[in-house]
């Protein structure tokens, strides 16, 4: 392409970037819907009167704090990782007995989980056979998260902060069960 032709060719790189950013943002929303639906599937396995899946989901997914500016692409990666986290948290709590699960114990239990791609993978392995609709997604999300350590760390930080607020710092009666 000579200089004249170059001048005649419109630069579409900005438009291309916008198209891609909008598409990736929509896929982030799709990821959130997918994980929310899988977490909700597990709700039937919990004791009535305490909405652990809802809590796990709200703790780990959603907005990052305002100080963290993520691009649309990063936000989508974050939605995938935090959706996997919510699912893994939920599976973790499935092992607790009805008597043991109050808001306090649930929050404390979640807050102490050594979370990371390895935890996602372990949760996926444990779920195999028992929860075939969630296990494969969890294991594949673990593979994806393994390459995104910074976002995983951010996700853990945000989830822990939200759990602390839910469990203690904002005046929620700790032994009060959440209603469905």
């Amino acid at each position, binding site marked *: 392409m000579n200089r004249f032709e170059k001048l005649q060719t419109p630069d579409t790189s900005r438009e291309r970037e916008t198209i*891609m950013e909008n598409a990736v943002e929509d*896929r982030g929303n799709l990821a959130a819907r997918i994980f929310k639906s899988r977490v909700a599937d597990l709700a039937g396995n919990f004791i009535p009167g305490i909405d652990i899946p809802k809590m796990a989901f709200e703790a780990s997914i959603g907005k990052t704090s305002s100080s963290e500016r993520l691009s649309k*692409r990063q936000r989508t990666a974050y939605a995938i990782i935090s959706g996997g986290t919510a699912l893994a948290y939920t599976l973790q709590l499935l092992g607790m007995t009805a008597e043991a699960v109050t808001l306090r114990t649930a929050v404390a239990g979640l807050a102490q989980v050594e979370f990371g791609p390895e935890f996602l993978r372990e949760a996926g392995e444990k779920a195999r056979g028992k929860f075939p*609709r969630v296990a*494969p997604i969890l294991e*594949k999300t673990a593979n994806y998260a393994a390459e995104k350590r910074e976002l995983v760390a951010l996700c853990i930080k945000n989830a822990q902060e939200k759990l602390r607020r839910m469990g203690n710092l904002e005046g929620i009666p700790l032994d009060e069960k959440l209603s469905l």
Partner: protein
Amino acid sequence: MTYDKQNLDELIEKLLKFGEDAEELGYWQSIFDDLEPGEQEALISNLRDELEKLEKLK
């Protein structure tokens, strides 16, 4: 109705040529068979829409 994986693979191959993120699209490719038909449909529709818009720019 289950969506055709080949359809997804073709869309992704074309999008990668436009510079899309191989890691993210690879993730979607890996979980595609684990998705519900409605979720597969939403994903295919998103990718097809993106590709159509990018091709119009050419």
